[in-house]
C-alpha cells in the first residue's frame, strides 16, 4: 500500500503543470462556494445583530384592544401578564424594554416629511442609546421630554439645525390629529432600506401625544440571553400567551396585510398592528389581543436575499464541478494513454489490477484534496482582504454590515462537506479511465506505441 501511495505521489509530481491546472480548477470551485457560504452566514449574523440594536430586542409583543367607541386601539396597559408567561416557561432574557411607535409628519418652515416616531424610555434603554450612530449633536439633553433625535438626511431635507424646534403631527391611538413640538438635539446616520429610519423621542411625551397613559406603551421588546434561540423562544412565548389571552396568528409579515393600513409598510412598524379603525361587527374581542413578532420575521427579506445568494453560489459550484469532473476524466484518460507502457511494465512485474486502479484513484484523490485545501486557504485570504473594505454607514447595505465592513463567518462543517463532495466526484470522474487502465492486457500494453 505504501508503495502505491509513493507511486501516486511520484506520478503527480512528474506532470506539475497538469497537476497544478487540475488542482486550480478544483480550488476555484471551492473558493466560490466557501466565500459565498461564509459571506451569507456572516451577513445573517450582521443582520440579526443590527436589527437587534435598532429594534432593541429579539421578540416583540404588541397589544390591541377595542375602545368604547368600537375603535381598535394599540396599547398595552400593563405587562405583568407577559412577565408571568416568561417566568412560567423559563425563558431566559436579559431585559424587556417598552416602546411606543407612531407614524408622524415632521414640519419645519415650508417643508415637511413623513417619518416613524419611536418613543423610548431613555433611563431603561441604554442599549438603544449606546447604539445610536450620532453624527452631530450629543445626548446631554436626552432627558428633556421634548428632545428629538432625527436622521441627518431628514434634517437636510427640512433644513433644520441642532437646537431648533420642529413640529410633529401624528394621530392619537384613536386616529385623532395631534401636534407636538420637539427640539432637535442630535442627528443620526440613516439606516438604509433594510433598516428602520426613525426619529427617537421620549416615550412619556409621545404617549401624551398618542393620548395613552404615561406608564402605558405599545410594544414590549424582549432581549434574549441567546440570540440563536429566537425562534424557539418565540414559539414558547406564543404558546404561553395563547393559553392565557387572545393572540393573532403568527404570520410572515411580508405576505400579510394587503389592506394598506400597515403603517407605512415599514418593517419597524410591522411590529404593531393597525390602530384607529372601526372594528367590524362580528370581529370584536374582549380585553387585549396580542401580536408576537420575532426578529426572524423582520429579517425575512434579508433571508430571502441570502437564499438567492446561496442558490446562485450552489449553481456556480455545481457548474464548476461538472466542468472539473469532465476535465479530470479527460485528463486521466490522457494519463492512461501516456502511461500504457508503464502500466504494462507494472502489471508484468506483478502489480495487480486493483493496485493499478487504486493508484489512479489515489492520484485523483490527492489532486482534489490538495486543490480543495489550497482553495480553502485562498478563500480565507480573500475573505480577510474583503473584510478590510469599508462601506459608508448610510449605504444601501448598511444593515448587513458589521461596523461598516463585510463579515465572513467560517463554516467548518460546510467546508468539510464540500471537500468530501468534491473528492468523491473527482474519484468518480477518475474511476472509469482508471478501470480501463487496470483492465489493460500487460502484453498488449507493452507492445503499444503512442
Amino acid at each position: 500500500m505504501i508503495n502505491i501511495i509513493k507511486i501516486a505521489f511520484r506520478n503527480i509530481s512528474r506532470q506539475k503543470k497538469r497537476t497544478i491546472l487540475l488542482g486550480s480548477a478544483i480550488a476555484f470551485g471551492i473558493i466560490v462556494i466557501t466565500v459565498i457560504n461564509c459571506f451569507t452566514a456572516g451577513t445573517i449574523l450582521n443582520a440579526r445583530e443590527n436589527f437587534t440594536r435598532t429594534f432593541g430586542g429579539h421578540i416583540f409583543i404588541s397589544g390591541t384592544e377595542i375602545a368604547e367607541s368600537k375603535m381598535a386601539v394599540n396599547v398595552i396597559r400593563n405587562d405583568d401578564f407577559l412577565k408571568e408567561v416568561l417566568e412560567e416557561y423559563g425563558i431566559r432574557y436579559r431585559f424587556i424594554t417598552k416602546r411606543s411607535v407612531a407614524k408622524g409628519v415632521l414640519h419645519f418652515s415650508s417643508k415637511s416629511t413623513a417619518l416613524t416616531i419611536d418613543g423610548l424610555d431613555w433611563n431603561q434603554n441604554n442599549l438603544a442609546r449606546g447604539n445610536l450612530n450620532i453624527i452631530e449633536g450629543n445626548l446631554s439633553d436626552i432627558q428633556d421630554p421634548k428632545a428629538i433625535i432625527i436622521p441627518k438626511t431628514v434634517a437636510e431635507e427640512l433644513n433644520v439645525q441642532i437646537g431648533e424646534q420642529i413640529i410633529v403631527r401624528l394621530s392619537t391611538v384613536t386616529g385623532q390629529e395631534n401636534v407636538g413640538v420637539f427640539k432637535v438635539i442630535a442627528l443620526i446616520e440613516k439606516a438604509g432600506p433594510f433598516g428602520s429610519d426613525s426619529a427617537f423621542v421620549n416615550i412619556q411625551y409621545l404617549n401624551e401625544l398618542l393620548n395613552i397613559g404615561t406608564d402605558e406603551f405599545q410594544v414590549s421588546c424582549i432581549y434574549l440571553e441567546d440570540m440563536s434561540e429566537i425562534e424557539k423562544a418565540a414559539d414558547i412565548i406564543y404558546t404561553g400567551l395563547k393559553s392565557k389571552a387572545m393572540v393573532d396568528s403568527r404570520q410572515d409579515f411580508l405576505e400579510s396585510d394587503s389592506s394598506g393600513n400597515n403603517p407605512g409598510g415599514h418593517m419597524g412598524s410591522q411590529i404593531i398592528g393597525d390602530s384607529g379603525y372601526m372594528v367590524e361587527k362580528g370581529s370584536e374581542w374582549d380585553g387585549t389581543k396580542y401580536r408576537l413578532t420575532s426578529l426572524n420575521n423582520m429579517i425575512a427579506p434579508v433571508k430571502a436575499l441570502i437564499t438567492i445568494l446561496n442558490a446562485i453560489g450552489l449553481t456556480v459550484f455545481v457548474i464548476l464541478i461538472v466542468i472539473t469532473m469532465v476535465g479530470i476524466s479527460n485528463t486521466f484518460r490522457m494519463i492512461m494513454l501516456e502511461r500504457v507502457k508503464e502500466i504494462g511494465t507494472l502489471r508484468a512485474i506483478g502489480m495487480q489490477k486493483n493496485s493499478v486502479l487504486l493508484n489512479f484513484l489515489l492520484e485523483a484523490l490527492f489532486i482534489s484534496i490538495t486543490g480543495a485545501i489550497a482553495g480553502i486557504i485562498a478563500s480565507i485570504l480573500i475573505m480577510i482582504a474583503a473584510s478590510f473594505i469599508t462601506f459608508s454607514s448610510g449605504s444601501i447595505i448598511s444593515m448587513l454590515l458589521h461596523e461598516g465592513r463585510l463579515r465572513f463567518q467560517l463554516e467548518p462543517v460546510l467546508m468539510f462537506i464540500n471537500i468530501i463532495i468534491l473528492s468523491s466526484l473527482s474519484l468518480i470522474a477518475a474511476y472509469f479511465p482508471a478501470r480501463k487502465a487496470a483492465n489493460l492486457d500487460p502484453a498488449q500494453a507493452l507492445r503499444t506505441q503512442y
Partner: protein
Amino acid sequence: MKRKTILIVIIILIVFNGVIAAAQEPDFQQVLKQIDESRNFEDIDISGTMIMIKEDLAEGTSIKSVTQFRRDGEDKFLMVFTEPAVQKGQGYLRVDDNLWFYDPESRKFSHSSIKEKFGDTDANNSDFGRSSYADDYTVTNSQDGTIGKYDVYILELEAAGDQVTYPFLKMWIKKDNYLLLKIENYSLTKRLIRTELFPSYSIIANHYIPARIIYIDELTEGKQTQVTVKNVSVERLPDSVFTKAYLERVNR
C-alpha cells in the same frame, strides 16, 4: 338719594339688556344641526366634479380632478380621480363605517381611514362625506364677530367622542343664514393644524353647497389646497355606483 336711584336704574338697564341679548342668542347646537341639514342631501343623490389645486412652496403647484358621487342618506360616497394621468382611476369608496381605497395598477382594494388625508392634498376623506357637526361636537363657547363684511357667530367646539379627526374646532357662522364661512381645526393639544375657508356657495335643490373651499395647512408655510366644485347634478344614481365593482369597471 337721587344719585343712588340713577345708579340702580343704570344697573337694572345693563342687566336687562344682558338678559335680552342672551335670550336673543340662538341654540347653537340647533345651529349646527341646521348646518348639517343644509350640507347633507338625505333624500337625493348628488354628483359633481372637484378640481383640486394644491400649492406647496417645496413641491410647486399640482392639479387634480375628482368625480364625486354621494348618497348621504345611506352614508355612502365614491370619489374617482380623473386627473392627473398617474392617479387616474384611483378611488375611494365609503359604505357606512368602511372606507376603501382602490389602486387600478395593482387592482386591489385596501382599507383606508376617514381621518386620513385625501390623496396628497390638505383635505381629509372626512371632508367629503356626510356632515355631522351636531352629533360629533358640542359648543363650549360662543361670541359675536365679523369676517369681512359679514356678521358672524364664532363658536368653539369640542368633539363629543374620539371618532372625529379634529378634537377641537372654531367656526365662523354667518348670522343671517347660518352659512359656514371659516373653520379652524385644532389638535388635541389645541394647536391650530388647518383652516378651512368657504368663500362661495351654490344653491342646489334648496341646499347650500360650498362652490369653493380652501384648506390651509397651518403647520407648513405656503401649503394649501383649493377645491372648486363644478357640474353638480342631483340625478338619481344607480345603486351599482356605490360598489367596488363599479370602481373596477370604470378602470377597464
